[in-house]
């Protein structure tokens, strides 16, 4: 058991640190004096910086070298993240593309797709977004209704709506899950597609959250035409392809507990500044929060150890998110009680956090669904009776509509 780098890891760390030392002056400034303020300017600068990071070997660390990656392991990816954070510079802009969608294309895409898309994705020239969730397909992802119909010439026509899409407002492409056959049970009739976000018929609309900010988007597809070879991984294989993406999502979540910025020290500093450090109630509550968040950090190291040994993290990795979100909610409660109503002032970082967390709780699957999955797949408990098994999707929909 060792938290230290192996010699190879130490060498990679040294290289990363040296590169950052040399190149950090090129990094966009996002806060403090001289910070960029315009959204468009920020995006442009971060895309450019992502390209530099990729050239420096600090993006796509686990991607194969053939596609511009480093061909290294998950520990090196974490080391890159640690060094970027240590240097005080922004990380890559398109974490979703590079972390989840690129690996999906590497696993299931055609050679033409890999050649066309991976390079510009890694270098931030083309940002990607993930088009899976729908208003009526959240927890039950396989219930999606966005429909792709085949035209006579083999091309596709896409209609429907996606939701909770990060980065859609400036993405070049999206990886989209659509229903191509409604007459088979719901997991069987799905196909994954590459969709150019500038295609006619694609509309992106910001979706404002409790805080008032548009953290996510809705994306509407109105008779969008896609070429015959736009599918990734084969027609009707969409569910299998999506599971690959979700597996990479889980890896990202498992390693990324700290990435959300819910650090016990940040909370402790706010409480110290308010002079609350001797209040026994504050101590009890902060102690519980800090203990849980510290646990999540070491759970991340355990996941990393498993990844290094070639194991794929199971769904239990999602429990780290449950812990993180619930601890951060408890921290928001505590800080609000200590600071009083000013913690809820519109410019307060705490008002932002308090507003953001309830939505985050459901993002990427509700806690309830996660607990079902873990109960069944990790603890081996029997599944709930499923009423939708083997039923053609079109029949299921008809039943629901009748019930309402």
């Amino acid at each position, binding site marked *: 058991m060792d938290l230290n780098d192996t010699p190879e890891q130490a060498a990679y760390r040294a290289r990363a640190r040296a590169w950052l030392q040399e190149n950090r002056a090129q990094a966009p400034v996002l806060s403090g004096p001289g910070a960029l303020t315009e959204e468009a300017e920020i995006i442009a600068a971060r895309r450019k910086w992502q390209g530099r990071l990729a050239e420096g070997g600090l993006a796509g660390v686990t991607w194969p070298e053939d596609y511009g990656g480093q061909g290294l392991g998950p520990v090196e990816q974490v080391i890159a993240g640690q060094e970027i954070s240590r240097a005080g510079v922004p990380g890559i802009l398109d974490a979703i593309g590079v972390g989840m969608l690129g690996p999906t294309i590497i696993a299931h895409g055609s050679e033409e797709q890999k050649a066309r898309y991976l390079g510009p994705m890694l270098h931030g020239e083309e940002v990607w977004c993930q088009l899976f969730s729908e208003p009526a397909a959240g*927890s039950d992802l396989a219930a999606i209704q966005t429909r792709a119909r085949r035209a006579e010439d083999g091309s596709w026509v896409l209609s429907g709506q996606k939701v909770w899409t990060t980065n859609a407002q400036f993405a070049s492409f999206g990886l989209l899950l659509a229903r191509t056959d409604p007459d088979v049970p719901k997991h069987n009739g799905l196909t994954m597609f590459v969709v150019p976000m500038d295609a006619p018929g694609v509309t992106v609309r910001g979706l404002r*959250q409790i805080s*008032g900010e548009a953290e996510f988007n809705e994306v509407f597809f109105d008779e969008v035409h896609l070429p015959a070879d736009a599918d990734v991984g084969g027609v009707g294989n969409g569910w299998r392809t999506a599971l690959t993406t979700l597996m990479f999502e889980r890896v990202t979540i498992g390693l990324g507990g700290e990435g959300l910025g819910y650090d016990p020290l940040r909370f402790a500093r706010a409480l110290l500044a308010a002079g609350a450090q001797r209040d026994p109630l504050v101590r009890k509550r902060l102690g519980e929060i800090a203990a849980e968040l510290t646990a999540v950090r070491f759970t991340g190291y355990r996941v990393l150890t498993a990844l290094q040994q070639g194991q794929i993290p199971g769904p239990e990795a999602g429990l780290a998110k449950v812990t993180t979100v619930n601890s951060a909610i408890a921290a928001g409660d505590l800080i609000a009680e200590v600071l*009083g*109503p000013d913690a*809820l002032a*519109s410019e307060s970082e705490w008002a932002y956090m308090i507003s953001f967390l*309830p939505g985050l*709780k459901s993002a990427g699957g509700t806690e*309830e669904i996660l607990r079902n999955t873990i109960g069944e797949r990790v603890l081996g408990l029997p599944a709930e009776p499923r009423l939708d098994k083997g039923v053609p999707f079109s029949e299921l929909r008809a039943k629901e509509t009748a019930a309402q």
Partner: protein
Amino acid sequence: MNLALSDEQVMLREAAREALSRVKTLEAARAALDGKQSLPDLWPTACEAGWPGLLIDEQHGGAGLDAFDAMLVAEECGRVLAGVPLLGHLAATAILSAAANATSFLPANASGERRAAYLPARPPADNDGAWSTERRSGLGREPVPAVGPTDGDGHAAVEGACAFVPDAPGAAVLVGAGERDGEIVAFAASSEQPGVQIEPVTRYDATRSLAHVTFAGAQAVILDCPIDALASAWHLAQALLAAESIGAVASALEVTVQYAKDRYTFGRAIGSYQAVKHQLTEVLRRMENGRSLLYYAGFAYRGAPAEFPLAAAAARCVAGGALDYAARAMISIHGGIGATWEHDAPLYFRRAQLSRLLLGGTEQATGRVAGEVFALAAR
């Protein structure tokens, strides 16, 4: 023994629901938060319904009703998150009604022509002997304003501040506790004088009208009323906030239950899943507990005044927890959509988060419950 509502109380409640249904309060709350438009003024609605005079006796133009009736109206306001400035007004008129030398003010207060606001002043507890008022930020409390000597007209000068005073913006008269030579006195000050500054503040929930109030040599009438009336007003304000909260819980529950019946996942309505069903029964459990304590507070206000601090604090403690739980359940059962700006759930959430911090905070109410129980146990 009979905890049923009287026919008059049922009518009062129905009339309130009807009157408030004429305004789209939730839409207005969202628009106000957006800064798009200011909130509709619901005071005329309140005046028409006779709510300003609920706690003022009939000979002074009021309805001569009891705290429980006021709580029924507060509950209906809470149900639709209506920004009716009753909390401050009713607590203030409870003090004025108890003052021998304030009877001439009462008719204008009762009609609503002159709106009053209560300056929250927390009475001493078993573990804290001082009267105190809200601080602008951070833990701890501030002393109540200082009151100078009374002049020949029964007036005195007031110096000091009270933060986060509910319903102060636009109030004509401010009523609260001050300290003079180590004694607590009640005072009423017109807001229409240079020595009074009312600085409106908005925090998170646009339907909650708040202000920081500063007195700099303001002229006030010293009220000839027992200190008990000042203490009782604090507890009344707690009970009214609890009633408002229970109203909001009730409507959040209705909306969420309906959604849980209509929304399907994995081929079943989500309300058929235990995780959803049990969360909703937990909302119900907390709501029913809160409501039972509203009955207790309503009974105790006049029926057992010694128990009123316990009853009101317990109601606030349970109702505050119920609203926080209900708002979070509302968001989480609605899935992602419940966290979006267009949905009503965030309005309930904002209401819950701010309510928790006002009037001393829900936590202090919990401590007060303990203090009252310790006092009973020590007998």
